[in-house]
Structure formats: structure tokens, C-alpha cells
């Protein structure tokens, strides 16, 4: 084709127009792009969590915690770094307790048993309240409110509710602390349990109390133990207990006395100190004034013979205790759970007088009373003697209504009181709880209770840190929606709120208003850890921190005298118990499920015992040499028989038990307690005999002697220890040895080269590489 100039220009122009049109018809790139933004929008999971400060309710002695909440669900419980008791530390129980919130067996609705022999049927809260009101109609003077030992506002509300109906508020603690409270009162003149300045002590001498595991305030003591061991010489720790507990395992010197002779061991230590003149005369005089008759007639050989502890070891403990001060002595647990428990603990706490450890740095620090009027700062279970009388009243039909909360009395009472039969004679048994327990099998009305994560309250730690503390408990989550989104996991209400709703209203409308009112009152005192311009700001400040404390408000002591009504321990008989070998039964509180209150939580069940590494079961620790002699092997099913009954446990031969002693953990053997605890293990409480402390009437739960017989079958003990064959680890880098005139870098290099030679050989090490 021949183009002239004009045609060429026309064609060029048309092509340009066509190109423009072509481009306009195409899709712009942005139309084909869809972008993932970098950040998540507000309503999606952001990985950001909210932390709320609250208190641990029934599962510790007032530990302040932080709860991690994501999208309305509580995910994790940690220690509150601000709280003077926990100081940011936690125990395995913090993790496990969360499972009670989401437990698949949580009681979903109020339940009514129409007749004593009938089954429970779901009812509405309106029907439940009507039934509750009916149960109170004839209960004037015939009402008993049974709870676990409660401090804070919940304890106050329970007591006032009982008083409104001229009834009784009785606390039940299967591991009674009444003897401890009595000893502290008589020797130190204190109403609240004291704390111990372990952090600043050079020597710690403890008896029977597993204070690193389960006794007192393990979180608080654990923090202090860490500080104690951080001292330049790591401190020195002596622990006396017939079996090796977690505390005994951490001790520098473990003494394993005959159960019930702990008081004599304390006096033996005192006599050595006095005989060797290791303390001042004024301290000796004060000590002898506190111990009627003094220790002049106590000889080391007698004490060694009675306690079964070598005289040399007693002497070593005494010298260390007196010479490396500050020193502190304390006791509890099995040491006080004898017929002479008051004497044992009195003598133990009196040792502090001897070394001048009362109200001094590194010694015993007393705790003040409650910062809030009418709110108890101290609580302990009613004595077993009082319970025997009360249960006799129930059996006689003198009590119309029993309200039970936080206390599984059917599981925790020994067989001797026949608690089941007694409950059948009470016309109205009303039980609160999150998960069906053994006691609810005898309840006429079962009411679903909120956990501590869902309810309001206050908690006064016992033992406190040595000054006034009011821990706050606030609902950190709302009602939990069930997994299939068909409704709530539990239509639960708070125990305190329910009692207040059923009350005459004279002592509060609901728990939240009580807590807010109390915090407002604290604000008006103008002291303590929270300062704010208004009561509402103060309340928010206290709730955000997990409580209020006043470090300037301390307790005081007044030295008294040790109760000495019974110095010798009595034990139950075994003469009529048939075949077998006699042992002294020392029950101990489980490190994870406690006395059974955490048995429903599978994480608590699977937490290995720190000594045996066993879990999910009830085992019996028995001295391994003695087990060999008796032909008992690990996993043998043993029949443990007392005059109160018989249980089956799995044998766990172990060198850390005094010969003649059998240690069995508490907390298992529930007939009901959710799917993870039902019919698991054996209930050691059931076979305890009704021996009591002669002073306080408390159950002497370590005074039972049992006859042990092999049942002829064997079951593998569920434990970690020994399940994996030991094997040598990989060779490591040797300890750094720094020679004279050598720098750490030189030494590091030299050691590193030595280490490398194992793998590279001399040739490669020298760099002669081909």
C-alpha cells in the first residue's frame, strides 16, 4: 500500500485514538486487587487480653490473683504482683481451679428432691426460693449454716443469717486448725495466725507443717523461702515430720519423730539450748515461765528415746537454731493433730521465746485484726467435739434446716459420726455448690453456686503479711455460655447473694453493695495503699489492685503459757482388727487436690505428687526397708483397717517415711464430685478414729493406728517416676575453671576448646583442615 503524507498522519492519529479507547476499556489493576490489611479489626480476636485482680476464694488462704480474660472467658490465673501475700507468685492449684468454672458437670439449675429417697429434679429459681423460704418458716432456733471456714464478707453474711434465725453458723474443716489457733492464742496471745519472717531468718525450724506445699499460706511462704535461700549462706532449714513432705525434702536437716512426740522434740531442743547456755538468761526465764515446770526434768536421752530421733541430730538442730539467729520456729499440720496436739504446738511456738524471735526481724510477726467492722479476719473449723454434739442434735431431730456451702461434710467426716444417717433426720437440707458432691446426695434442695470468678466478696488472708489487708473479690467473667450455645453452663447465683435475698435485708442487699460499702468506709479512714479523692475512685483503685492494705497497721503479741494438760499422745487400738501389721496412720493434705476440694479438676488430679510423682489415685507411703521385710511391693493393694473402717490403697515403698508410719494423701474417694473424681481412690477421712485433742476437742486426725494387710492383688501406681528409663545425657560443657592470672574469657575459650576436641579431634581444633 502506498501512503502519502496526509494518509500517514491520518492513520497515526486514528491509531492513537484507538489506543486510548483500548486502554480505557481495560480493567484498572486496582479492580482486581483485594487486600489483606495488616491489623485485626476491633471485634476480632486481637490477642490482647484483659487482666482482672481478684482473690482466690475458698482455694487458698487469701491469695490475691490476676485472671487473664479474653473475649469474656477466663483463661489463666496468676499471682498478683501487687498483693502482699502472693507477690506475683502462683501455685499449680491456681491453674487447676479454673477448670471448676468450665466443668462439664457443673450444676446447671436448682434441683429439688421431693422425698428423702427420691431423685433430684430440676426446678426454677422461683420454685427454689419458695422452697427455701418454706424451709426457713419453722427454722427459728433450729437452723444451722455449715460452711468452710470463711473470712471476709461471706463469713459475716453467713453468721448474721444464722443469727437472724437464732441458729448457728458452724465451720467445717476436715483438716482442723483449731489446735493451731488455740496454741497461738495461749502462747502468743494472738487471735489471728501470725506470719513468719522466713526471708530474714538464718534458721527455720518447723514441725509437721508442710508450709512449702499445703500448710498455712504456701504462696506467701514460698516467696519467703526463695528470699531465705538467696541469703549469702542460703540459710539453714530444719524440718520435723514423720514422712518426707515437700517441705522436708527442701530442708537441710530432716528429723522424723514418732508421730505425736513433736512437743517433746521441741522441749528436747530447748533443754540442749539451755544446758549449753546458748541463749540469754532472760530468754530462758521467759521460756520457763511459759512452760509450766520448765524443762529441768527433760534429758536429751529421754527425748531421743521417746521421739526416735538420734540425740546427735537433736543437738545439732538445737545448736544451729540457737546460734545462727535470727531463728524462727513454728508448727502445725500433723504435729497438732494428736490428743496432745495443744501441748505439741505450744512447746513448738514457745521455742521462739527462747531465741527472742517474737515480733522481731527474722522471727514471728503477728497479724492485726480486721480493718472492717463485723468482718472476721480469722476463721477456723468448729471442733470435732462440737460437731459430734451438733450431729447428735441432727440425729435427734432437733434441727429443722441445715444450709451447707463449701463443706463436703459427708466426705470429710469420719465414719464414727454417722453423718449420712444424721442428715436423713434433718427435714430440710439445702446445699450450695458448683459441682455435685457427696453431701448433696443427702440434700433436699441443691442450689448451683457461682465460683469465686463470678461473684463479689472480700478476703482477709490468714496468715496475713503482718499488717492489715483486705483482698477484694470481683466477678471477672459473666455467666458462661455452654459450648453448644443452647444456654448458660450454669444458672448459678452467689451464696452470699442468695442468703441476703432470703434475709430480712437488715445486713445488706447484695454482696456487691456490701463490698462497695466496705471499701467506701475504708476510704473514709484516709489510710492504706489506695488514696483517692472520692469513694468511687477509691473503690475502683482497690478493685484494680486486688485489695487494700495498710503496712502501718500491725499486730502485737503478749506471751502466755503453754497448755500442758496432756503431754503424752494416745493412739487408737488395733487389737480387734484381724490379720496384718500395725502402722501409725499419718494422713497428709494432697499437694494438688488439697483435702478434696479440688478433686473435681482434672488438672489437679493429674498434677504429680512432689514426692512420689503419683496422681489420679490414693497411695500409701511406706518405708521401703520395712516393705521389703513385709514382702510389700509397689502397687500391692493394701487393706488399711482401723476401728472406724477399711479402705484400699496402693503401696508405694519409699525411703522417706519413718518405719512404722504409713502416709496416705487426703482428698480422693468421692462418691460424687464430677466425672473426674467419682469413685477414684479411697477416702482416708472415713477411717479416722474419734480421738480428740484434750484441750480444744479438735479431731486428732493423726492419732489413728491401723492394721495393714495385703489384699492379694496388684495395680500399677499411676506415677511419672521410673516410667522412663534413665539414660545418660549428652556430654555438656564442663564447669568453667578460671586459673590464676586467667581471665574468664581465656578460661571460657580453653574450656570450649576442650569440649570441642571431643567432636573435632586435635587436627581440626588446631585449624589444620584439609
Amino acid at each position: 500500500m502506498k501512503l502519502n503524507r496526509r494518509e500517514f498522519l491520518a492513520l497515526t492519529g486514528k491509531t492513537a485514538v484507538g489506543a486510548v479507547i483500548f486502554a480505557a476499556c481495560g480493567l484498572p489493576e486496582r479492580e482486581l486487587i483485594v487486600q489483606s490489611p495488616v491489623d485485626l479489626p476491633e471485634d476480632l480476636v486481637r490477642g490482647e487480653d484483659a487482666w482482672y485482680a481478684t482473690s482466690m476464694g475458698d482455694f487458698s488462704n487469701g491469695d490475691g490473683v490476676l485472671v487473664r480474660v479474653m473475649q469474656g472467658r477466663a483463661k489463666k490465673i496468676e499471682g498478683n504482683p501487687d498483693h502482699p501475700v502472693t507477690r506475683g507468685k502462683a501455685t499449680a492449684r491456681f491453674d487447676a481451679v479454673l477448670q471448676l468454672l468450665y466443668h462439664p458437670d457443673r450444676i446447671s439449675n436448682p434441683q429439688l428432691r421431693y422425698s428423702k429417697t427420691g431423685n433430684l429434679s430440676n426446678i426454677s429459681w422461683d420454685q427454689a426460693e419458695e422452697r427455701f423460704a418454706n424451709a426457713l418458716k419453722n427454722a427459728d432456733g433450729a437452723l444451722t449454716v455449715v460452711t468452710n471456714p470463711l473470712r471476709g464478707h461471706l463469713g459475716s453474711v453467713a453468721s448474721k443469717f444464722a443469727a437472724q434465725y437464732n441458729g448457728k453458723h458452724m465451720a467445717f474443716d476436715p483438716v482442723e486448725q483449731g489446735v493451731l489457733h488455740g496454741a497461738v492464742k495461749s502462747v502468743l496471745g494472738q487471735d489471728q495466725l501470725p506470719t513468719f519472717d522466713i526471708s530474714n531468718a538464718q534458721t527455720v525450724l518447723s514441725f509437721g507443717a508442710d508450709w512449702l506445699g499445703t500448710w498455712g499460706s504456701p504462696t506467701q511462704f514460698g516467696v519467703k523461702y526463695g528470699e531465705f535461700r538467696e541469703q549469702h549462706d542460703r540459710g539453714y532449714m530444719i524440718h520435723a515430720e514423720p514422712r518426707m513432705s515437700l517441705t522436708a525434702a527442701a530442708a537441710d536437716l530432716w528429723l522424723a519423730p514418732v508421730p505425736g512426740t513433736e512437743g517433746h522434740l521441741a522441749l528436747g531442743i530447748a533443754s540442749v539450748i539451755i544446758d549449753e547456755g546458748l541463749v540469754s538468761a532472760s530468754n530462758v526465764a521467759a521460756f520457763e515461765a511459759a512452760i509450766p515446770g520448765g524443762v529441768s526434768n527433760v534429758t536429751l536421752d529421754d527425748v531421743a528415746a521417746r521421739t526416735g530421733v538420734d540425740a546427735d541430730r537433736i543437738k545439732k538442730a538445737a545448736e544451729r537454731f540457737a546460734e545462727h539467729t535470727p531463728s524462727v520456729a513454728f508448727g502445725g499440720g500433723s504435729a497438732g493433730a494428736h490428743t496432745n496436739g495443744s501441748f505439741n504446738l505450744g512447746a513448738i511456738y514457745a521455742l521462739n521465746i527462747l531465741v527472742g524471735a517474737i515480733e522481731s526481724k527474722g522471727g514471728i510477726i503477728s497479724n492485726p485484726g480486721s480493718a472492717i467492722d463485723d468482718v472476721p479476719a480469722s476463721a477456723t473449723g468448729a471442733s470435732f467435739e462440737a460437731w459430734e454434739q451438733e450431729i447428735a442434735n441432727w440425729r435427734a431431730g432437733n434441727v429443722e434446716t441445715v444450709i451447707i456451702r463449701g463443706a463436703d461434710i459427708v466426705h470429710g467426716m469420719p465414719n464414727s459420726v454417722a453423718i449420712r444417717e444424721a442428715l436423713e433426720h434433718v427435714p430440710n437440707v439445702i446445699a450450695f455448690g458448683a459441682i455435685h458432691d457427696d453431701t448433696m446426695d443427702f440434700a433436699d434442695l441443691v442450689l448451683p453456686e457461682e465460683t469465686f470468678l463470678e461473684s463479689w466478696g472480700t478476703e482477709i488472708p490468714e496468715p496475713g503479711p503482718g499488717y492489715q489487708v483486705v483482698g477484694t473479690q470481683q466477678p471477672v467473667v459473666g455467666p458462661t455460655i455452654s459450648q453448644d450455645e443452647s444456654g448458660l453452663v450454669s444458672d448459678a447465683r452467689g451464696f452470699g447473694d442468695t442468703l441476703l435475698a432470703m434475709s430480712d435485708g437488715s445486713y445488706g442487699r447484695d454482696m456487691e453493695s456490701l463490698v462497695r460499702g466496705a471499701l467506701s468506709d475504708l476510704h473514709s479512714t484516709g489510710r492504706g495503699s489506695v488514696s483517692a479523692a472520692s469513694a468511687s475512685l477509691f473503690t475502683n483503685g482497690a478493685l484494680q489492685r486486688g485489695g487494700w492494705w495498710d503496712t502501718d497497721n500491725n499486730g502485737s503479741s503478749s506471751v502466755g503459757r503453754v497448755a500442758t494438760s496432756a503431754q503424752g499422745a494416745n493412739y487408737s487400738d488395733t487389737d480387734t482388727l484381724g490379720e496384718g501389721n500395725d502402722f501409725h496412720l499419718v494422713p497428709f493434705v494432697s499437694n494438688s487436690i488439697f483435702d478434696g476440694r479440688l478433686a473435681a479438676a482434672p488438672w489437679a488430679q493429674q498434677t504429680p505428687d512432689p514426692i512420689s510423682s503419683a496422681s489420679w489415685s490414693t497411695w500409701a507411703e511406706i518405708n521401703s526397708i520395712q516393705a521389703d521385710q513385709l514382702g510389700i511391693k509397689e502397687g500391692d493393694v493394701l487393706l488399711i483397717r482401723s476401728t472406724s473402717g477399711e479402705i484400699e490403697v496402693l503401696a508405694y515403698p519409699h525411703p522417706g517415711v519413718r518405719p512404722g508410719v504409713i502416709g496416705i494423701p487426703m482428698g480422693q474417694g468421692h462418691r460424687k464430685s464430677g466425672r473426674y473424681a467419682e469413685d477414684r481412690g479411697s477416702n482416708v477421712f472415713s477411717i479416722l478414729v474419734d480421738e480428740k485433742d484434750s484441750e480444744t476437742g479438735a479431731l486428732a486426725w493423726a492419732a489413728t493406728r491401723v492394721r495393714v494387710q495385703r489384699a492379694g492383688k496388684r495395680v500399677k501406681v499411676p506415677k511419672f517416676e521410673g516410667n522412663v528409663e534413665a539414660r545418660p545425657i549428652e556430654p555438656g560443657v564442663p564447669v568453667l575453671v578460671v586459673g590464676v592470672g586467667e581471665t574468664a574469657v581465656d578460661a571460657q575459650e580453653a574450656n570450649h576448646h576442650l569440649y570441642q576436641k571431643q567432636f573435632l579431634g586435635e587436627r581440626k581444633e588446631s585449624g589444620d583442615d584439609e
Partner: protein
Amino acid sequence: MLVPVLAIGGLGVVAVMGVVAAFIITGWLGQPIPVLGFEQTFDQPIDFPHTIHASLKELDHVAADGQTMEGLGQDCTFCHRTVTTQANAGIPPVAFCASCHQVIGAEDNDQLMILRDAADIVGDDGPSPVNWRRVHRLPDHVRFVHEPHIRYLTANPSEVTNSTDGVTEGPSGVCSTCHGNVAAMQQVEQVESLKMGQCVDCHRDNGAPTDCAACHY
């Protein structure tokens, strides 16, 4: 129309015809019609496998250790979170992917490293969005809202067409009607025409409005 075109001469005809042809070709590429089969797909900035995430079945490929793999069976709504409530199905933010993949997946997986780089888990160039290529696209003059479609089909599962290897219950069970068996696609492709005829047929079959303003407004 031909008169002015022919009036500009032979070369002019060629040029105009070329423009028209280009217009048609471009239009076809942008909005393909199933004449030759389309199965439109794009290479994406990250080779995201819907199979691993959404399928409930054993996968064709095997893991690095030689093990056979099954899909995770995640709900479509796990990532496309707004599909049941809004017009757009929603593309997950980088941070959402990274909430799993900062720990899940091999450290040397090239594709995951692109994601981790975008989420600023690795690298030092800060976080950056990921620009995915849109596979399913309707013309600008069509307003499509996912929410009523998902709601209707979830309530009427008998109207769902195309099977899926992924979750079949709830909202995730209805996506296949328009998007095909995405749970079986290593790389997502368009399997339905998504032309007006298909929309109108479905609306007519299910008693939905067919007036113009239903979609063109």
C-alpha cells in the same frame, strides 16, 4: 454506522475493526463467558492452599516427613468472618493469619515466610498488607450482598448446589453454590459463570426478586 467507517478508507476500517476487536477481547478477559471454558485463576502473592485449611479429606500432597495429610476442616467463616453479616465476605488480616502461623508451619517454608515478613515477625521492613488477586468479580453495576444469600441457603440447604470437601453444616456448607468446591482447590478458580443469567435463574427458582433494582441500584 458502516457509512462513516467506510468513508474513512481502507486503513481506517482496519483500525476501527482492530479497536472493536480489542474491546471485545478485553471485555472477555475481564468478564469471561463460558464459551471456551474459563476457570479463571491467578497466581497469588502467597500460594495459599484452601485444601489444607478447609478440606475434611485426605489431601493429594504429603507432608515434608512423608506423612499423608488431612485438611483442617476449618469453617469458611473462620477466615471470611463477615460473610454472614455484611456485603463482603471479608479477607482475613495479616495479623489474623499470623496468630497461627507465627508458630505453626515450617520455619523454612517460603510461602509462610512471605506471610511472616508481611506480619513483621521476620525481616525488618515493617508490617505490610498482602494484595491478593480477586478471582470472583462482578461488574461495577451489580450490587451483591453476601449476607442474605448465606442466610437463605443456610436455612434451605436443599437449594445448595455443588458439593464441598469442607464443612457441610452451617454457613460454610453453602458457599459451594457460587464458588464451587473451594476446599478441594489448591489455587482458587472460578467455576460458575456468575453471569446475570445465572443470578436471575436462581432468583426465579427460589422466589427471590427479579426486578432490575434488586441488583442494579
